[in-house]
């Protein structure tokens, strides 16, 4: 008897969570339904683009309209599903700027954040990708509410916030263009950070699943006639010494780019990469670095891409 | 139970636990008497041995359950 009551309650609770999470405007999966109506440039990837590419700064330079779809800790499968959901509710943008580095091909860096897709498991594509990327999680999702219980510390707050947004009628995210400014943290001990990030001269190991979803992401964009650019932002120069096979991995990315016939833009060796004062970690800038980098990126866009093309439909 | 032995045991308890007003009951266990724990147990045993001029065996001192048992044991030893 209690078992039945518990089972039914869990089913109800699952519905409550589904609804709450879909209302939370600060979650990109939910807010893409209300994202900028016309986007020319979609920025995508893990935390590096999220914290380093500011559509507001970029648009000042380029005059086009961009949106940052990136999310921290995400791998390509994660990116793939977010792009899929974005395209489901929005007009396809003209350009996609996708962050690719040696780290993103190695499964020790970032991950597939299955919890982000918990409310959307009824979608067949989402369901299939989650099953492939986090089987340990997926195999329990048949138990009512287990899709939330399994990673519940990720949801409780967001659900409450979702209901708050619902009742207050909020329609925009806290960061409306998707860019999150970097944390204001001081970075003291550099070598300590390297040691944590690249233990014992980390050798990157390419992962086939990562590469598969990189291909899938590029192809999904190309099907929608989006021009895809792969890019790599500056890496703190000192850190390169700790990564013996970085160049090999870069070659691997170049090969993929050639295969898919998309350009791979490397900002790795910009002069600012030698200045520690711009970084908060080996791969992330502070706000000072962000401003400088977006300026460079904007000028690059103007001269190399936009210069030869008619002004895009969303131009302000 | 031997009243006189009981009073004498009580006297030793008062000395060991430094509480002149301590009253013990036969059903008291170590948890009932503040300060009586494994740290002080053997000190108590030693003082009893000196006072009554007796010797306990190891099995004896780890087997009694309350002060009543202890008094019985002492009574047996001195008679």
């Amino acid at each position, binding site marked *: 008897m209690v078992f039945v009551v518990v089972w039914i309650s869990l089913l109800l609770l699952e519905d409550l969570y589904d609804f709450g999470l879909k209302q939370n405007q600060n979650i990109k999966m939910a807010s893409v339904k209300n994202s900028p109506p016309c986007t020319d440039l979609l920025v995508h990837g893990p935390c590096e683009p999220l914290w380093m590419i500011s559509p507001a700064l970029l648009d000042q330079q380029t005059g086009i309209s961009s949106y940052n779809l990136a999310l921290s800790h995400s791998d390509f499968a994660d990116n793939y599903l977010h792009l899929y959901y974005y395209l489901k509710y929005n007009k396809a943008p003209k350009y996609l700027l996708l962050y690719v580095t040696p780290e993103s091909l190695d499964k020790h860096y970032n991950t597939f954040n299955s919890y982000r897709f918990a409310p959307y498991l009824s979608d067949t594509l989402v369901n299939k990708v989650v099953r492939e990327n986090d089987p340990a999680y997926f195999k329990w999702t048949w138990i009512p509410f287990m899709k939330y219980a399994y990673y*519940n510390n990720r949801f409780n*707050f967001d659900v409450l916030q979702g209901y708050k947004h619902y009742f207050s009628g909020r329609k925009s995210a806290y960061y409306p263009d998707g860019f999150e400014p970097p944390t204001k943290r001081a970075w003291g001990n550099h070598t300590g950070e390297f040691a944590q990030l690249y233990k014992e001269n980390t050798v990157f190991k390419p992962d086939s699943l990562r590469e598969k979803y990189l291909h899938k992401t590029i192809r999904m964009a190309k099907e929608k006639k989006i021009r895809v650019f792969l890019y790599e932002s500056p890496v703190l120069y000192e850190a390169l010494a700790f990564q013996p096979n970085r160049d090999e991995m870069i070659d691997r990315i170049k090969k993929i780019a050639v295969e898919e016939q998309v350009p791979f833009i490397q900002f790795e060796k910009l002069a600012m990469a030698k200045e520690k004062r711009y970084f908060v*970690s080996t791969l992330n800038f502070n706000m000072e670095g962000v401003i400088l980098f977006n300026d460079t990126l904007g000028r690059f866009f103007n001269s190399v891409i936009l210069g030869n093309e008619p002004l895009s439909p969303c131009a302000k | 139970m031997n009243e006189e032995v009981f009073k004498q045991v009580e006297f030793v308890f008062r000395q060991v636990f430094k509480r002149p007003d301590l009253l013990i009951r036969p059903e008291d266990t170590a948890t009932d008497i503040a300060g009586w*724990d494994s740290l002080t147990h*053997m000190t108590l045993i*030693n003082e009893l041995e000196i006072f009554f001029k007796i010797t306990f065996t190891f099995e004896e001192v780890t087997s009694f359950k309350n002060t009543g048992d202890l008094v019985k044991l002492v009574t047996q030893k001195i008679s």
Partner: protein
Amino acid sequence: MAFSSPQFLIFFILVCGLNFVLKNSARKHLLLIASLVFIGWFNFYTLGAVIFFSGFTFFIAGRVTGDKGAFIFYSGLMVNCLAIVLFNYLLASGGLVIFSLNAVDFSVSALFLFVGLSFYNLQHVAYLVDVRKKRILAEKNFFDFLLISSYFPKFISGPLTLYQQLRPQINGPAPQQIILVQGFNRMLLGFFKKMVLADRLAPSVASVFDYNDELPGITVMSGAILFTIQLYFDFSGYCDMAIGASKMLGIELPENFDFPLRAGSVTEFWRKWHRSLIHFFTTYIFYPVSFRYRRFKKQAAAIAVILTFFVSALWHGIGFTFMMWACCHMVYLLFELYFGRGSRPGKLRRFISVALVLLLVSFGNIFFRSTSSSGSMHLLSRLFTFDFLPENWAVELLAPIAVGGHQAEQFNLAATLFFVFFTLLFERKIFEHANVSKFRPLITFLVILVIFVFGVFGNAQRFIYMQF
């Protein structure tokens, strides 16, 4: 098979159901098979070691009495003690954490293997001593002996049970229905403590202990206190599950905790914490030593304390950190031995002494939890610097403890701390409720719901250790 894993639940429901319907004479065979399956599930080698050590101890136990038995007795002790030291050495070379602390990349089965075996051999030591001292008769039936020493609810980490505690129970009748309910309630408390409290605190503790960050002293101390609480709920929750599960199979295991965080002195703390192990050390090391040298009065107790904690440190694991942990407690206990202790009257005074004991124990636990000697030294240096208080409380205290600076993480921390303090405050009441033999639908329902909404399932920590 960890107790909170789904595999264990299925396994246990099967065993429990069969145990309930089987005849009395067949039940012990079922329990033996279940225990061997349980152990074999972790590791096939463990099962081999268990059968080997049981066979060895069983074989020599019949020959340790009398004058001629002395040599065999001491060799038996040596073999079992060496096994413990060896397992601990292997453990030390792999990484030193006791109980499931959700450390990164930690091989759980290897951990359980060795911890399980050091409990296992300790029970054999007690058994041999008791047979030698003629407190009990040596067991005649090998399979009964094997069941008693490998009985699965207590195998991994206790409660440490003596042969004489289990022997009369293995032929007992099947449990009545009310006992089943009682056992179930107790297990539910265990799941709550483990999943909602201990495992939720684990990442906060890890963020203080595992990253060598330059944290202010108060953050280190808070981390140490949270670790003490985590360890308590982890281990006592584990024991609740073991005791409850065993109850449902018709066998009573001894209690292992007596509200230790309410102790008013360190001496009292050790009467209430991990009681089955302390009982073992008291009976087989502390009392014999302090009895033999009793004419030296307090010095005898002092020597016995030092020796007992020395052995305890070795048993927990080989290494500097465990030795330092033991030294802390030696100092505390010797201080209390010479300068007095005990409950002083008055609620405020009681509260102060309880808080003081928590601080002292937590300080010692800095060594217990640190994964290396340099790690513990680093934390100590943070504790004794001038910047004990942070300049920015949100960044230097709240963020490390909440494992992040976002609202969501602070909300999770607040929820966890709420449950922790609620449980600590009403500990006795909750314990009473967990031991009733009546089925309480509403409470059961609410506890299951809380576990689902706030408990840790699977490896939810997977994301926390990602670097960027």
